[in-house]
């Protein structure tokens, strides 16, 4: 049988985590699949389970110095703005049922909201959490690609304190994260300034309940008609989400030069940078060739959309 803990405070959760190395369990939508067993048999967990979904502080979302702090157990349905989304309502302990502030929800960057909205189906999004999506560390994880584009930082807590780590350092490989045996993912920090423009395109295997074949998450801050900073992150085209920093410096240096001829040249150059960095594979969902070709097509689409935004700002 599987040993199960339902702590009612963060301190208790951290103690159990440190003593038992119990695996933190929020919505369980990935864990229950990963440790799936046949009918009539219990899931094959190798360690005790630590339910963290019922701790109120894991279910909050708030502004912080112009950025956002998102509790690790916040369900994706809240980020997606789903109708009927339930926060912390998984009923495994002292349910928090925290109702997020509408004004705060309105500041969620479009890329994160759109990415969350394309995960699974409504029922799954009500259980699946942003921290869980991170911990699963799939290169096809939709909220992960968005968080790369938003330069998110991950706050990890343990009995010995707190540490903050950029998402690019937190995710080590498929299913591998920089999380010590006594640590719990506590908060996702999206630093200021929140972007003025974002782009999200998921190419999935179908229109809902679909896994990602390729995705592009992008964001930019715009000042005086110029790109002050921007980011381009590709999902499912390598062992990790890939951020192509060369595209970012290219766009920062060139814009607002937006004549059509120039634009074509910039897109071609951006594609060249991305082309050398993305290394997709053939698998049961798609082909390497398709993933690469579409990833490059999406760059053109995203840059064209950014240019439209700059024109609007003129």
């Amino acid at each position: 049988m599987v040993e199960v803990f339902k702590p009612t405070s963060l301190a208790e959760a951290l103690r159990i985590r440190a003593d038992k190395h119990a695996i933190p369990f929020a919505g369980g939508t990935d864990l229950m699949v990963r440790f799936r067993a046949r009918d009539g048999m219990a899931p094959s967990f190798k360690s005790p389970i630590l339910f963290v979904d019922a701790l109120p502080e894991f279910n909050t979302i708030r502004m912080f110095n112009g950025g956002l702090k998102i509790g690790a157990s916040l369900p994706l349905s809240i980020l997606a703005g789903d109708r009927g989304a339930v926060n912390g309502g998984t009923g495994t302990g002292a349910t928090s049922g925290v109702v997020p502030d509408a004004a705060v929800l309105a500041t969620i960057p479009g890329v994160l909201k759109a990415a969350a909205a394309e995960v699974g189906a409504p029922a799954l999004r009500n259980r699946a959490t942003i921290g869980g999506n991170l911990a699963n560390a799939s290169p096809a994880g939709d909220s992960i690609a968005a968080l790369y584009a938003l330069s998110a930082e991950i706050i990890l807590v343990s009995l010995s304190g707190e540490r903050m780590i950029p998402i690019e350092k937190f995710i080590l490989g498929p299913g591998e994260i920089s999380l010590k045996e006594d640590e719990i993912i506590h908060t996702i920090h999206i630093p200021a300034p929140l972007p003025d423009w974002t782009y999200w395109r998921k190419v999935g295997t179908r229109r809902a309940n679909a896994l990602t074949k390729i995705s592009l998450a992008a964001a930019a801050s715009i000042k005086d008609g110029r790109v002050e900073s921007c980011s381009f992150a590709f999902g499912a085209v390598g062992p990790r989400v890939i951020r192509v920093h060369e595209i970012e410096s290219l766009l920062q240096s060139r814009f607002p030069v937006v004549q059509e001829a120039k634009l074509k040249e910039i897109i071609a150059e951006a594609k060249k940078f991305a082309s050398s960095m993305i290394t997709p594979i053939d698998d049961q969902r798609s082909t390497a060739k398709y993933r690469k070709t579409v990833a490059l097509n999406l760059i053109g689409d995203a840059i064209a959309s950014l240019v439209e935004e700059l024109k609007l700002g003129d």
Partner: protein
Amino acid sequence: MKSISQSIPRPDGMAKADGSALYVADLQFDGTEGGRSPDGAVALGSESGLSKDMLLGRFYRSPYPRGKIRRLQLPECPPGYHIISAADIPQGGKNEIPMAASRDMPCFAENEIRYAGQIVALVAGPDAYEIERLIRAIELEVDETPVVKNIDEALALKGGAIHGEDNIFCRVDLDEGEVDEVFAGAASVVEGVYETGFQEQFYMEGQGLIAWRTGNKCGVRGSMQCPYYVHHAVSHVLGLKHDEIRVIADTIGGGFGGKEDYPEIMGAPLAVASWVSGKPIRMLMDRVEDMAFTSKRHPSRCVYRSALDSEGRILAIDATVDLDGGAYETYTKIVLMRAVFHSLGVYAIPVFRIRGRGIATNTVPSGAFRGFGAPQSLFGIEMHMEEIARRNRCEVLDYKRNYFLKKGDTTVTGGIFRDEIILDKLIAEAERLSGYSGKRIKLGRGKGQGIGMSFILHGCGFTGDGEQKIIKGKAVLKKHRDDKVEILCAAVDFGQGPQTTFRKVVARVLGIEPNTVIFNYPDTDFVPDSGPTVASRTIMIVGYLLQKAAEELKAIWVEGEEQVVEQNYQMPPGMSWDQERLRGDSYATYGWGVNVCEVELDFLTWETKVIGAWAVFDVGRAVDHRVVNGQIQGGMSQALGYGAMEKLEVDSKGQFRQITMADYMVPTSVDFPRTEALTVDNPYLYGAFGAKGMGEMVHDGGHAAFAAAVEQACGKACTTIPLVPETLMEIMEA
């Protein structure tokens, strides 16, 4: 009086919606010998296979795809556990599953392995963990032979022949006129190769059965379309007489043909295990095992060559229809017959040569799936007609019209189309609903938008004289002393509606309320063999027998007395069939349909989006509009999924690569719009209240309409389905 077509609430609907319906996984022993559920419909006693000490069963499947078995070492069993294999088949029984004329598939693999996942042994016992341990302890050694993954490798005899000397399980050939002469004199020839993939039935409820033994009687119950098929298979494998076997079809959560053959393949070894151990055993497949190892639709490759005259008119067609039958023949021959008999679609072609082959490979044996060969060859002929029309710079609808079959025309097997063919009426309705012709012109070609129209016919009932010679269907009505009328037949409701429509047919004749008619799920101890629930035969053939029985009962009705009437199938007058030469009326009658599909194509990602779907059918007469519309909606989604999304590939061992719900892309409710549909009445004289079969033809043409629409949107020929974005990218970049 209200039309019979007017819908009534489905009698089985509420129990399925509120969760009270009992599926095989839900069945629990009620502590009695002969108990039944509160509504009387479900047998719950120990005589019906349920008891406290029911065991769990699981198959041990070969991890090797192909080779001679060198050694099978079974571990020591703890008390209460059983491992059953070929050696346990009792004397008088046979280690072969009887399916149609084929006997090649063993119940348990004995000498050779032909596909990865083949059933080698069955482990039964009380505890799932111990069963798991025993399965891991089984040792199988196989001298491996190179794997044949597809039709090409089979025809190249890779690793030597799997079956016979040439890997051809069966052939179906049709000839009319002097094909070579006509081709020699043709002004031009158009040739095309059209391919379709595997398709998973994706019923909601996985395969599940219980087998048990009561004295010298063997029982099997659970999720199945054809209780008498299972009955026959168990009798053959155990060597028991017919009255020594009882089969009960329980509530079933979807079939689509997937529960036509597989319950025999699964039920026979399970029955052996129960017979030998003396214990009831329940086996439930989880989704992954079900997707990985149960029968799928036959992949196909059709090659069409058409000889044209100088005006672009078709003089003759020379076609080959190849089906990948998988590792054993099973039902491939009759699937191939249907594929070949539908291979010229709704067109009258004067001269033709068709060569059909069922081919052996090392994949899971292909089996029954809604449409049963017709969706494959109809895709071929429809896409070929698109190509010919393009060559002729002619609107495809105008071109096809020149060849439409009409009443009195000859079928491909030399039979006669005896009934009115109303394609023109169907097209008029389809045009009105969809605006097809206007859009077809307006959308241009290669501009990212397209609309396609496909035509289908579907032979209703068993092929040839199968109904008369093989099935010999019988249906019974029993009037109890309290004047309640009970339907006794072997037809199963797996969503397609006989629980509703049969009651309506009987009630309408007798002037009683449909919900007063008793119609329990079939139990072979009580119901006659009215035939399998397949082949678009249920409402037309069995429904008609019930209508006739009700008419007879009405004529002899005496209040307060028990009365029984029986009806046996009779071939409609004038129909004839020569099974040796495959000549004559291959089907009693046909359903007809027009499908229209409109798409948009995203040039960034090559994703297609279906923005409209329309369907108009001649179903004879709809016995219940809601039931018929449900079939149309579901059939269209399944056909569009087949055409657009449902990629199912095999790996280097011939095993399916997409075996989870995350990887096999069956459409969701948001993938396709609702189909705008209607039916046009064209009553059939020998069907219940004029009904023809329609459950399959709704899956026959949606994929071809979709592919035709995509051809217009991308401006290139699309001859292979599914047209997933990866495939479209290759087509457009070629």
